[in-house]
C-alpha cells in the first residue's frame, strides 16, 4: 500500500494505533517487572472488567468526535438504562424485552440530543451538558437515590456472567464499529461531515442525518455498557458511570488518535487507548501508588497526546511522510 515508509518512526507517527499500542506494550513490560502478580489470571480479569465500560463508550464517542460533535451525557445514560430495564422487568415484562426497551429509550435520548443540537444549532457541548444534569436527575428521581439488585436469570449469565463478558462485548462492538467506520458509506460520510462540513454538504451528503444517527449510536452503546455493568456487578447503582466514565471514554479516544477537531479517528486506537488507561490505573494500584496520582497521570497523558498530535500533524505536512 504505502511505498514511502521511512522506517519505524514514520510508521508509528502515521498510525496512531501503532504508537499507542507501543506505549501499551511498554507499560505491560514495566508493570510485569515491577509486580509479579501483574500477568496472573485474576489481575487480567480485574483490568479487563475495569476498562471495558469506557472502552465500549469510546466506540460511540469516537463516531461523534469524528463527525465534529461530542456527547457528555453518555455516562448518565449508562446509569439510567439499567434502571429502566429494572422497572420494566419489575412490571412483569420478560427481562430480554425489558432490556431491548431500555436500549430503545437510550437511543431515543440520543435522538433528542441530536435533534436539538442539529436543528436548533446548539453546540453539542452545551446540549449534552444540559442533558447530563437532566438525565442524572431523572435517574436519581426514579431510583430514589438507592441502588437495587439486578434482576437475574440465564440472560444475566450471557451478558455478564463470565468474567470476561464485558471485555468480550467491548471487543465485539469495537470490531463492528470499526467495520462501520472503515467499510460502509455511513463511516465515510461521518468522516466527511466532520472533516469538511461545507464540502460534504455540497457533495450532497446529509450531514444532519449522519450526526443524529451517531448521537443515537453513542447513546445506545452507553446504555448497553450500563446494562452489561449492572449484570456484572449484580446491582444497579444510580451513581454508576457518570462524568467519570464519559471523560475516560473521551480520553481513550483522544489518546488512541481521534481528533477533537473532527474529521479523523480510529475505533481500534480508542480500544487500545482504553486498555492503556486501564493498565495504568491497575498497575499503579498494584505498585501501591496513590489513586490521586492516577488522575495526574491521565491528565498529563491527554495533554501530551494532544500536543504531540498537533505537532506531529504539522511535522508530517512539512516532511510529507
Amino acid at each position: 500500500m504505502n511505498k514511502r515508509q521511512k522506517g519505524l518512526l514514520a510508521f508509528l507517527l502515521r498510525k496512531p494505533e501503532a504508537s499507542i499500542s507501543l506505549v501499551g506494550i511498554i507499560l505491560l513490560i514495566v508493570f510485569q517487572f515491577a509486580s509479579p502478580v501483574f500477568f496472573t489470571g485474576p489481575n487480567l480479569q480485574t483490568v479487563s472488567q475495569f476498562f471495558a465500560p469506557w472502552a465500549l463508550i469510546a466506540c460511540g464517542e469516537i463516531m461523534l468526535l469524528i463527525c465534529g460533535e461530542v456527547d457528555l451525557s453518555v455516562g448518565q445514560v449508562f446509569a439510567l438504562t439499567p434502571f429502566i430495564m429494572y422497572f420494566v422487568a419489575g412490571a412483569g415484562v420478560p427481562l430480554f424485552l425489558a432490556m431491548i426497551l431500555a436500549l430503545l429509550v437510550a437511543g431515543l435520548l440520543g435522538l433528542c440530543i441530536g435533534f436539538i443540537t442539529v436543528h436548533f444549532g446548539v453546540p453539542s457541548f452545551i446540549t449534552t451538558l444540559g442533558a447530563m444534569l437532566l438525565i442524572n436527575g431523572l435517574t436519581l428521581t426514579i431510583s430514589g437515590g438507592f441502588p437495587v439488585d439486578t434482576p437475574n436469570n440465564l440472560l444475566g449469565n450471557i451478558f455478564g456472567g463470565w468474567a470476561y463478558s464485558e471485555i468480550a462485548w467491548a471487543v465485539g462492538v469495537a470490531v463492528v464499529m470499526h467495520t462501520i467506520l472503515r467499510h460502509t458509506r455511513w463511516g465515510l460520510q461521518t468522516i466527511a461531515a466532520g472533516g469538511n462540513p461545507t464540502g460534504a454538504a455540497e457533495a450532497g451528503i446529509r450531514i444532519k442525518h449522519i450526526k443524529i444517527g451517531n448521537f443515537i449510536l453513542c447513546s445506545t452503546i452507553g446504555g448497553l455498557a450500563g446494562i452489561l455493568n449492572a449484570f456484572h456487578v449484580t446491582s444497579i447503582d444510580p451513581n454508576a458511570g457518570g462524568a467519570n466514565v464519559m471523560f475516560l471514554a473521551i480520553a481513550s479516544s483522544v489518546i488512541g488518535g481521534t481528533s477533537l477537531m473532527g474529521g479523523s479517528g480510529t475505533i481500534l486506537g480508542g480500544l487500545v487507548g482504553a486498555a492503556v488507561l486501564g493498565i495504568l490505573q491497575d498497575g499503579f494500584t498494584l505498585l501501591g501508588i496513590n489513586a490521586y496520582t492516577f488522575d495526574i497521570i491521565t491528565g498529563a497523558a491527554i495533554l501530551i497526546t494532544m500536543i504531540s498530535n498537533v505537532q506531529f500533524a504539522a511535522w508530517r505536512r512539512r516532511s510529507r511522510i
Partner: protein
Amino acid sequence: MSEATYALEARDITKRFGQVQALHGISLNLKPGEMLGILGDNGAGKSTLMKILSGFHAPTTGELLVKGKKVEFTSVDHARSFGIECVYQDLALVNTLSVYHNMFLNREILYQGLPFLNHRKMRELAAEALADIGVNVPSMDIEVGMLSGGQRQAIAIARAVASHARILLLDEPLAAMGAREASMIIALIERLKARGDVSMIMIAHNYAQTLDVADKVMLVQRGTCTFEGRSAETSVTELLEIVKREYRGITHEV
C-alpha cells in the same frame, strides 16, 4: 447557428437582494466544448451569476436554457441533474480522506448486494479517471490534505468530470496559486477543452491567463456586462482600458 446547439444559455438575468441590485440583466451563451472566461472586480456580480447558473440562487428575472430547453433550477442538485457542476473555490474535498474516497464522495461504490465499500474498485476507477485527464498524484491512498493546492484543485475538477458533468463552472480555479501550480491547472483545462465533451465557464482575476485559455471572455462590472468578445480579438490592454473608463465613470458620479 440555432439556439438548440447551445449547451447553456442565459437570457437577461437580473438578481436583486433586498435593496441591492446585484445583476442588471446579463446574457451569455456557451456552445458544447466552448470555454467562457468571466472577468471583473470583487463585488461585480461574477459570483452571483455563477450561483444562479449552478442552481444555488434563483434569478429575479430572466431565463436559463440547457440545450435549448428552458429550465428553472430548484437546487444545486437539480442543476447537477442537468450536468451542471460547480467546482467551488473552497473545494468540496475532505482533507482527512484519501484521494479515491474524495473522488467518490457520496457516489461510493459498494460490493453488489452488500452494504460494504468496494475500496479496490474505487481506487482503480479513481486512478483511471485521474490518468484519463492527465492528473498526477503520488498515490490514491494519500490524504488529500497532504497535497498541494494545485493537485487538490485538479482532483476537484477531475471529480466533477468523472461524475459526468457536461458544463463545468470553475470558481477562481487559479486563485492563491503559484505560477507552476497555475500552469498545471491551465494545462488540465486545455486538455479538457481538447476532449471537447465539456463546456466550461471560469471566473478569474488574471486577465492574461484567462485570455490565454478561454475561447471568449466577458467583463462584468457593477452587475452589467461591459465587454463580450472572442479572446483572440481582444487584448489585456483593451480590457484594462474598458475597466479604467468605467472606473472614471464612477468617480465622476461621486
